[in-house]
């Protein structure tokens, strides 16, 4: 049986998610709780409480009780693939998903006006605006775009939480006559375990990994998780020549890239020369809670960080293509 995924969004054309023109598939659900998250509603999975239904001005939302909806194959077994075993404060969709008689939220995208009232209402900071895709359905989407893209990128949320779907999708692409020219990339927070990576590696062309902070403490403060698994992932990807990009999201005064610049550079300069070191600038768009009180990162902040890295010998730095 084909795997399913809970998809929060499909972006048909992106210039910033890997080489060339890319179709980006954002999967719903994340095991981090970043205070600086720009899409906090992609973190939790909907538990079909129904609270958002009446708030929708377009009647785009409803509850159904059948098992017609395919269920995402994630959780217990996949969660264990992620380095950090600490349970996060959401238990993604296990209740609605494992019990077909329980209700599911149905979102009619043709009625939706994208007013985002439902996001504001949701007590779980989730979204009802997700869709379920089987691997076959996703392959159809990709097939329709194949002349326009150089590849696909799985992003999130944390895409690797739905690893079996990704493996099946990537392997189907690699073995398809019409799609095998497409590169398959993963955009990840780096929490996937070595076991998980080894299952994916045969079908993966490259990964973009977030290194959200240098120090364990800082990383834990920002994301709620340790960064040891991230370093392990980066090393493993390096060994297998699959590390396309390491991403540093700079928040002046909060991230420690500048404070620990020597140690950071020592680490980054040992990465393969082809690996891009992508600097991203923190901005407030979408950010909730304390993160929205942090300073935004300006072009000058990025320039200063880039300068410090370059002076100490980091090559292949990629700057943001725009600042908000």
């Amino acid at each position, binding site marked *: 049986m084909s795997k399913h995924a809970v998809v929060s969004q499909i972006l048909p054309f*992106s210039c910033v998610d890997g*080489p060339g023109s890319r179709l980006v598939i954002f999967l719903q659900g994340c095991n981090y709780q970043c205070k600086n998250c720009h899409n906090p509603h992609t973190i939790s999975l909907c538990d079909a409480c129904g609270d958002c239904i009446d708030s929708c001005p377009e009647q785009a939302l409803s509850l159904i009780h059948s098992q017609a909806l395919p269920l995402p194959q994630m959780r217990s077994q996949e969660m264990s693939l992620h380095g950090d075993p600490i349970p996060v404060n959401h238990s993604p969709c296990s209740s609605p998903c494992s019990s077909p008689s329980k209700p599911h939220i149905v979102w009619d995208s043709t009625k939706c006006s994208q007013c985002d009232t439902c996001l504001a209402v949701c007590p779980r900071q989730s979204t009802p605006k997700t869709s379920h895709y089987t691997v076959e359905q996703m392959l159809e989407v990709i097939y329709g775009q194949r002349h326009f893209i150089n590849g696909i990128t799985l992003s999130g949320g944390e895409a690797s939480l739905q690893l079996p779907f990704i493996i099946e999708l990537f392997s189907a692409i690699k073995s398809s006559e019409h799609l095998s020219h497409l590169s398959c990339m993963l955009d990840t927070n780096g929490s996937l375990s070595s076991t998980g990576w080894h299952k994916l590696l045969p079908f993966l062309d490259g990964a973009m990994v977030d290194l959200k902070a240098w120090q364990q403490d800082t990383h834990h403060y920002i994301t709620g998780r340790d960064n040891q698994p991230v370093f392990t992932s980066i090393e493993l990807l390096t060994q297998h020549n699959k590390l396309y990009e390491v991403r540093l999201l700079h928040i002046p005064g909060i991230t420690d890239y500048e404070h620990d610049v020597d140690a950071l550079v020592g680490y980054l300069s040992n990465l393969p020369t082809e690996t891009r070191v992508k600097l991203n600038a923190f901005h407030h768009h979408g950010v909730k809670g304390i993160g929205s009180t942090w300073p935004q990162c300006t072009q000058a902040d990025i320039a200063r960080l880039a300068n410090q890295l370059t002076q100490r010998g980091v090559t292949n730095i990629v700057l943001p293509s725009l600042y908000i």
Partner: protein
Amino acid sequence: MTLQDNIEKIVTHPHLSPKQKSNYLALEAENSLPYVAVSERLNNAMKQGIICDMFEGHAPFKPRYVLPDYAKYLQQGSEYLELSPAEDFDDALNALTILYFHVPSVTNIPVYLGQLDTLLMPFTQGLDAEAIYRKLKRFWILLDRTLPDAFMHVNIGPTDNIICRTILRIDAELQQIAPNLTFMYDPAVTPDDLLFQATSNICQCGKPHIANYPLHADAFDARGFGIVSCYNALPLAGGANTLVRVNLKEVALNANSIDDFFAQTLPYYSQLAFELIEARSAFLHQQSHFFDSFLVKEQLIDESRFAPMFGIYGMAEAVNILQALLPNAAEITTTNVASKPNTGYGHNPDANELGLRVSAALDNIVKSTLVTYGYNGRALLHSQSGISLDKNVTPGVRIPYGSEPDPISHIQALAKHHQYYTAGISDILTIDETVKANPQAMFQLCKGALSSGFREFSANVANNDLVRVTGYMVKRSDIETFKQCGSRTNTTGLAAEAAINTGIFQRQARVIAHEQAPFIHE
């Protein structure tokens, strides 16, 4: 306002140059003559804004667009201009520059400067790359400074050659408004790295347009074609005698059902458009003496290669209006189309299907209607990209501003229309500026567009200073200062007018407007 008031306003205008004033004065003079004779019904349709003559003037004494056979001219020289055949590169550039001043058009500035690489390659012997670069760069600057109109169009490609590559290099370097540039792409001939250079240029300066060479070439005979002004594809050694356009939105408003639209309204107004085409081209061909010109005598143009363009615009509004006439269409009204970005023309498959039916019907009408002065006796269908005074009506078959889907869905929604618009169609894609750091993405998007049937791929990169005003380029910074200072270029005035009329800069990095219109700015 009386004629004298108008003239007074023009001559005392604070921001127009003497030359620009002369052009507007000439238009006023022409328009003081009675209009070519037309029927009452046509006159009404024009008054109601259903049929439009593009403000070409009351008494057409020159064709709208002229595409001289520059190759023949370089080869034979000109008796009239007392020029012997060009012998070297400098001769060729000099001869071309001279002829450009004798090629009329609706704007008085030539809209077609030739397939420059094919024209110049025979004269490159003995020149090294650096010499070619220096000469062409000077020529490029001369064009921008002496013929400052962004409708003026150079064609290059599809073959790989040093002129083509050098022009691309210079165009990216100079970032000038003029000349406009079309690169012909033929997958069988053009190497990928050349297309890559062209599409990388788009990331830097919004030019060139990429034309689907095999598609265009199939539509014309062996003597060839050129891309001129804003995406007008026309026979080489000929051109367009006139452009008459039909406002599909208004046509749809006059229909009481979809069937009525196809059976009655559309054919009715199309016939009126043909009446206007006949009246205008009869004056040009029979009374103006334009075709006594040396251009004809020296066979640089041929009267039989001029075709009227049958233009259409407002497809998006027409389709949404017609969809609302469906019995079960309670939900699809124009108002909620506006509030729901993913419904209506460009988004909804049924709406797109209906749009395609309209294009097919137009194609059928244009191909089955004989005209007195046409290309093989026919007019050519053109998706017209709007003029600066259009309000609440979308150019050609485009998706309305601000509601465009992502570039790929955009291309897919419109690709099937392209087969019908022989005389050109422009869909401008707005790509966000992240593409600048990833030109591979632009390249792939372009390839995808052409392989799905696009005749012409045009893209604007948001936040480039050079922005496309439908078919031509203006500098954003020029538009912003136009009201205070006037502009050296003729097109910036139009663009400023368009930008003010549509508030376009508040939405997308682009302005609408089109060809020269005889209006001056308050």
